């Protein structure tokens, strides 16, 4: 008996150690980036264009470019993703077609991000002749985040109790009225969470925009959706590997801005989810 107790203690100690091995580096990464990046952050860094071959000046065009891309991706992906989620949660029957759709979603979420980049290049840049542009990049990112939006929205819709649907239908409301008036309003927090997570993912990805939109160095703001644009993650890649002698502060500063942007979106999503669970009426 003593022996088994001791082996349990040892085992739990190693489990704890493994957990520390993951959590501590994560904390360290965040702390290092904040510590070394914070000195770089000032108004000029956030609002100026890059100067002297990106060795000084600011990162404003990259921030704006990322906002454009993320916004475009969501404009494309949210309506399609939400309607697809409605189909899966409210209309799909348990049949072969439904299984194939689910499999397609699983696959779409597993496709490597660089393959999305290739696809965007072949379809939007070359085939549709949009060129390397915000439009091509947004559409590529939009398709990439589609599975996230579908999956989270579907969970949100399915968590609305079936009894609400029965009540609405029993009063003679049509199926669409029921979805529109009862199911959707009660699923909005979940849908919002999924959308924001998708935004965060789109903001942080580099590989899909490498060949579809990203400009190496473009010290002005894009004028239309057919313009190239700089983007934060690609900018970080460029100043870390492609440009020699960049002050470390600038690199850390850029990493910090990107990290804060992405983590902020995740934080908002977590807060919405938390508040919703607390307030849930059923």
């Amino acid at each position: 008996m003593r022996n088994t107790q001791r082996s349990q203690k040892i085992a739990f100690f190693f489990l704890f150690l493994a957990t520390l091995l993951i959590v501590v580096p994560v904390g360290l990464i965040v702390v290092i980036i904040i510590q070394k990046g914070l000195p770089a952050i000032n108004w000029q860094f956030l609002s100026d264009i890059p100067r002297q071959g990106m060795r000084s000046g600011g990162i404003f065009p990259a921030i704006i470019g990322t906002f454009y891309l993320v916004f475009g991706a969501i404009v494309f992906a949210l309506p399609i993703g939400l309607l697809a989620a409605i189909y899966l949660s409210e209309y799909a029957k348990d049949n072969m077609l439904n299984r194939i759709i689910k499999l397609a979603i699983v696959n779409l979420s597993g496709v490597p991000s660089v393959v999305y980049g290739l696809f965007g290049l072949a379809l939007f840049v070359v085939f549709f002749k949009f060129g390397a542009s915000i439009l091509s990049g947004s559409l590529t990112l939009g398709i990439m985040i589609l599975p996230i939006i579908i999956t989270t929205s579907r969970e949100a819709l399915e968590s609305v109790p079936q009894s609400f649907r029965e009540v609405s239908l029993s009063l003679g409301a049509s199926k669409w009225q029921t979805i529109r008036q009862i199911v959707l309003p009660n699923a909005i927090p979940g849908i919002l969470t999924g959308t924001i997570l998708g935004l965060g993912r789109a903001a942080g990805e580099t590989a899909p925009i490498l060949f579809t939109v990203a400009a190496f160095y473009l010290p002005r703001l894009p004028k239309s959706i057919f313009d190239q644009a700089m983007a934060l993650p690609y900018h970080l890649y460029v100043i870390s590997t492609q440009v020699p002698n960049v002050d470390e502060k600038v690199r850390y500063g850029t990493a910090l801005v990107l990290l804060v942007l992405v983590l902020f979106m995740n934080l908002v999503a977590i807060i919405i989810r938390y508040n919703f669970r607390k307030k849930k009426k059923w």
Partner: protein
Amino acid sequence: MVIFNAKNLNIWFGQIQALRNVSIEIESNEILSIIGPSNSGKTSFLRMLNRLNDLNPGFKMSGWLEFAKEDIRKIDIESLRKRVGMVFALPLPLPLSIFDNIAYGVKMHGERNRRKISSIVEHSLKQAYLWDEVKDRLGVSAFKLSGGQQQRLCIARTLAVNPEVILFDEPCSGLDPISTAKVEEAMLKLKKDYTIVLVTNNVKQAARVGDRTAFFLSGELVELDRTEKIFTAPRDQRTDGYIRGKFG
């Protein structure tokens, strides 16, 4: 007048047969109580009458069921459900205000006139004996009401769309005796304007409010007769056993 007419009605959910050869006529402006143990098919039968069973995956039916002399499968499903309202086993307010709960069905059927909607809401709440308790707080969430009030709210909500028939699916199973009495009182008053079909686990309730009572067992209709007859001199031994079992 016969309002529902079922002949040799069989239904299945997947492999499981829930109703077997049920033939029954429901008269207008009566209260028909349906009793029977759980899984006897009584709720499945009730949900046939507004075609709510259609929502279940694997649902199939055979036989004949008509509402107001029309094949139930040929009537537009939304207008059928408007004409045949339902009150569920548990109080199920929608996550809306008290006012919007009642107004919901009315709005869904295309009514836009605010004044008219308000007067329908008031009238329905009065019919369900809830008006005096809620008239000062129509804007608050329906979840703030007590269980018994919520159930009367659900009755008012059903009345608001002006149905011809109201289906009650064990409407008092979650309520205390006082709330139950209030719901039963409302049902008796409603009888003169509506046809009522009441599924209940509570044999005494069937005896109290039913004009006629039907006894279901294992998906079959065992016996249907005037309520006094069922409770004093049932023809079938199984009916007798069920009623006595419950009494004793």
